[in-house]
């Protein structure tokens, strides 16, 4: 059953991925001609404009270009950076672990904040705690991450002379230092998601707590904490998991800003630099990687439903 469901989900995911790949492929091809000329002047990547167009594969019919590009991608060839001349795939392989770690910590932090507060706000609906939690959540959705990051760098430095570590510590050299340096950026990255998740947890839990089985559980004399967590939360968690899936693009997008501010050598920073240098093969490669990750994670989220809720049968 699960296999059939997985197959069906894949059939839906594949067209999305294909359309996304067309978008990824088309974007650099919309560059006005003078940009190619500018690139020529900036990078000295080719002798003349014809050679550059040939190197970028812009000199053939669009469907041919797309087919060729897909064929290359299938073989793991994402082209090479116009600036460093290194294969894009190699560069990504270096940077992906940093961003993946950052996104993972951000997600964990978001959940660690959102679930307890969301549960508390729902269990004590309309109390002061609920009111404060809800207002703080909307505030959390309103704070620009780059401003928060700036403040958290500036203020401790001014007040206590404390500055976050600059420069990147490798995991193999100093595992503790490596994780510690990622915690602050990850927390900032996770705040907006935490707010969104908290609001949904609260809303869904409130709905679950109104059900008959909750009244039954209370009538049986179960402790309120058991009722809330075992009967309420378990039934409220599915939409929260869905939202977690949709938060991933936000977190990944946020890495562009956060990695740039904290000088972390991740994929987001790589993309930002590539965009500033008009390094189109890199932009294409990063976009493809990111979009595939999101599609795959959402597929995983769908499968997770069945594990969390035995009522869902495929």
């Amino acid at each position, binding site marked *: 059953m699960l296999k059939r469901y997985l197959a069906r989900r894949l059939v839906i995911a594949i*067209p*999305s*991925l294909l*359309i*996304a790949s067309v*978008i990824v492929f088309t*974007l*650099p091809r*919309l*560059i006005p001609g003078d*940009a190619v000329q500018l690139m020529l002047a900036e990078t000295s990547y080719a002798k003349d404009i014809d050679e550059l167009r040939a190197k970028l594969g812009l000199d053939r019919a669009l469907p041919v270009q797309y087919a060729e590009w897909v064929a290359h991608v299938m073989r793991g060839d994402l082209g090479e950076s116009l600036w460093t001349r290194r294969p894009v795939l190699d560069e990504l392989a270096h940077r992906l672990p940093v961003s993946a770690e950052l996104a993972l910590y951000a997600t964990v932090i978001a959940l660690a904040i959102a679930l307890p507060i969301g549960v508390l706000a729902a269990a004590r609906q309309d109390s002061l705690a609920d009111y404060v939690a809800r*207002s703080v959540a*909307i*505030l959390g*959705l*309103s*704070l*620009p*991450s*780059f*401003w*928060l990051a*700036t*403040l958290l760098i*500036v*203020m401790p*430095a*001014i007040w206590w002379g404390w500055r976050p570590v600059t420069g990147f510590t490798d995991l193999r050299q100093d595992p503790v230092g490596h994780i510690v340096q990622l915690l602050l950026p990850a927390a900032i990255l996770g705040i907006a998601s935490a707010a*969104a998740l908290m609001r*949904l947890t609260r*809303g*869904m839990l409130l709905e679950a707590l109104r059900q008959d089985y909750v009244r039954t559980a209370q009538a049986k004399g179960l402790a309120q904490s058991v009722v809330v967590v075992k009967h309420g939360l378990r039934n409220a968690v599915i*939409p929260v998991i869905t939202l977690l899936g*949709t938060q991933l*693009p*936000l*977190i*990944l*997008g*946020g890495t*562009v*800003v956060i990695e*740039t501010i904290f000088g972390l050598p991740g994929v987001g920073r790589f*993309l*930002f630099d590539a*965009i*500033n240098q*008009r390094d*189109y093969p890199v*932009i294409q490669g*990063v*976009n493809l990687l*990111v*979009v595939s990750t*999101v*599609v795959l994670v*959402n597929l995983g989220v769908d499968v997770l439903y069945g594990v969390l809720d035995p009522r869902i049968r495929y």
Partner: protein
Amino acid sequence: MSTTATIDLNGAAPSPTLVRRGGGAKRWARALARFAVRKPLGAIGGVIVVAMLVMALFAEHIAPYAYDETIRGARMKPPSAAHWLGTDNLSRDLWSRVVYGARVSVTVGFATIALGIAVATAIGVSSAYFGGAYDLVLQRVVDAWLSFPYLVIILSVMAVLGPGRLNLIISVAIIAAATNSRVIRGAALTVMQSQFVEAARAMGCGHARIILRHVLPNVTATIIILATIGLGAVILAESALSFLGFGVPPPYPSWGAMLSGSGRTYMFRAPWMAVWPGVAISLAVFGFNMLGDALRDVLDPRLRGTR
């Protein structure tokens, strides 16, 4: 006979409309007062939004200095009675720059959301109305758009279009269109199941008439809510892009751009340069989020949990 039937059926709208027609100032005032009592946080949001609009509209009258005016002997002065929010490294009054900065956020925000919501409505309503293969294909394209992190796709589009106000509006609007079209499609699908749509079709109304006269008016509440909440998100996106250097070019002040460049270079010596533009962004977004939340609860509680 048939005319009466149409009027009756039209009257049976499934979702509450904003304010009934033929009201007048008194009715509006009463509706506003009731809203403020029922949703105090929403009312606070509304006040913030109005203050921001006033700042943007009357910047010349509110700001004590021009946004690019250098004041002699006032380089990086901390907040004081003369300069409420202090001055920057080019001796410009920060309060004046924050006031003018509202203009960028408001113009970019409203233009983006107008364009984005218009496209989202076209996609959402037509997708729900025509259904079938058209809906399937269009929704897969929307799926694909939605799987891109918004900042990644916007930056990529900006890399192609180049920086500037118009390109910023277009690239953010593309994202707003994709995200909101889903919700509008959902709302339109509900309306499509109503009897008055069936009746209109049975009476031989054309596609255009059914969409414009029957479906569209009944998804207006949804559209208003999405636009209000969306404005907060769009202002946030605009400030992030300006911060990254893809927004309105200097010296015109935009809140996001004020936090990058010199705001960051001098932030340790003049922290107020890094504080106030951020406060302005947060307040503006907070205002729109609060107002949008309250509007959603009042106008269309079914939308809870869509964001």
